[in-house]
């Protein structure tokens, strides 16, 4: 009975290796029980649920390995809050449908609350906490600098391991730091956030809301198409809005109209 059913089913089901960055809570991370979790992961789980012909296996790893691994075919798809750039599109398949929205902004001390854009920030000659080179935020700011050669943000590459943006800014080690709003929420705004005590000293100023994408290996066009179908359905069902609220504390789809990248 059921045993043969299972094996039969298994035979038709294709395994998909989904690599996720395991250390960017709340977007993608490994939870205390060693299980994959986070906004992007939850969406992919829903996608998996809609695709009976595929079975997703979530593999935790680091940014470097995820990027290399997806390109090489070690993993079929990777999620790590990836933004869209031309160059990346050459290496990976971007599906037609984006995965989620991400509010990206600056964390600043209260005195600097008037700084609303990168241009303001650059003009004021403020210093920015270093950003890991393979982080999408780095690219966004670099692109800004390319477009505004006369008013550049001082950009330094660093490492997430040693650079704690919140601490950097609050201690005055740098004037501002790039951060995803979801993270800022959970760290500072949330009542049980570890930096909640700094809530009245810091501000988060949104710079942009940006679409994030899953990256597919070049050979996985079929999978990407299947993904497109599934995520369309999820968006229609407003499942994505729910997850955005759940993880980012805010329905970013409200500003979708203004999102231009």
């Amino acid at each position: 009975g059921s045993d043969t059913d299972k094996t039969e089913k298994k035979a038709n089901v294709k395994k998909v290796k989904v690599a996720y960055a395991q250390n960017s809570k709340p977007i993608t991370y490994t939870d205390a029980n060693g299980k994959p979790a986070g906004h992007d992961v939850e969406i992919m789980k829903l996608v998996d649920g809609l695709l009976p012909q595929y079975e997703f296996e979530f593999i935790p790893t680091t940014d470097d390995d995820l990027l290399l691994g997806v390109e090489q075919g070690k993993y079929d798809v990777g999620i790590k809050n990836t933004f869209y750039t031309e160059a990346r599109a050459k290496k990976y398949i971007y599906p037609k449908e984006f995965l989620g929205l991400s509010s990206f902004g600056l964390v600043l001390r209260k005195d600097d609350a008037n700084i609303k854009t990168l241009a303001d920030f650059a003009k004021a000659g403020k210093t920015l906490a270093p950003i890991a080179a393979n982080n999408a935020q780095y690219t966004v700011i670099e692109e800004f600098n390319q477009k505004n050669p006369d008013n550049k943000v001082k950009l330094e590459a660093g490492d997430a391991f040693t650079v704690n943006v919140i601490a950097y800014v609050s201690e005055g080690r740098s004037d501002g730091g790039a951060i995803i709003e979801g993270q800022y929420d959970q760290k500072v705004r949330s009542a049980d956030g570890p930096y909640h005590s700094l809530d009245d000293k810091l501000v988060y100023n949104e710079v942009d809301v940006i679409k994030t994408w899953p990256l597919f290996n070049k050979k996985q066009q079929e999978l990407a198409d299947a993904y497109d179908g599934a995520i369309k359905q999820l968006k229609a069902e407003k499942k994505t809005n729910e997850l955005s609220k759940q993880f980012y504390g805010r329905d970013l789809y409200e500003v979708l109209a203004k999102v231009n990248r």
Partner: protein
Amino acid sequence: MLKFDFVYLLEQIPKLVPYLDITFLVLILTLFFGTILGFILAAWKLGIRPILSKLAYAFTTAMRCTPSIVLLFLVYYGLPALASIFAFDLNDLSKLFFVVTAFSLSFGNVMSEIIRSSYLAVEKGQYEAAVSVGLTRFDAFRRIILPQAAVVALPNIINSILTLLKEGSLAYTIGLIDVMGKANLLIAMNYEAHALETLLALSFIYWSISIIIEKANELLEQRLSKGRTFVKTV
């Protein structure tokens, strides 16, 4: 800056300790395979066959010049790619396999230089005396040369073992979670808030292990040094 939270530090220790099994597994497997490789390479370097010795030296140069992360990626991506040419699929192999392979290559290489230099530090007369009383080359090595060379080699071997112990951060880059990886995850899960406490807890664990290793080494060194006198300044 958050207040330093000592209790938090203590709480992290039991969360980290279970992941020591991976750390030790990697360490022991690498020690085993790396040491074998080290002996083979050293034997080639010291041997009389010019091709083998050139080969061994070339391997050493290559290994020395390769950053561990590059080596790990080479093994992790290169090996399956190589195997796929012969229609083997290595992609499903455990990450442990790739980590141990990469570490064994570099550890074996370091060992080969340690073995070579300490072997050469033993006077030739000792070997001659050994074979003159009918010991085979192997016995001469095992019973006379090795114990004397080991005194010289040990401090360097411990240097490399301790380095190896802490290579967890590398294993982590391909997603193999040992204590070091777990510490990273714990930090990430708490939004980098108590990084200091977590890292200190990790250091505490590592340090304890190192102290045990160093103590064992000390005893061994003393035992092997029996009957020998060494230079001092006074």
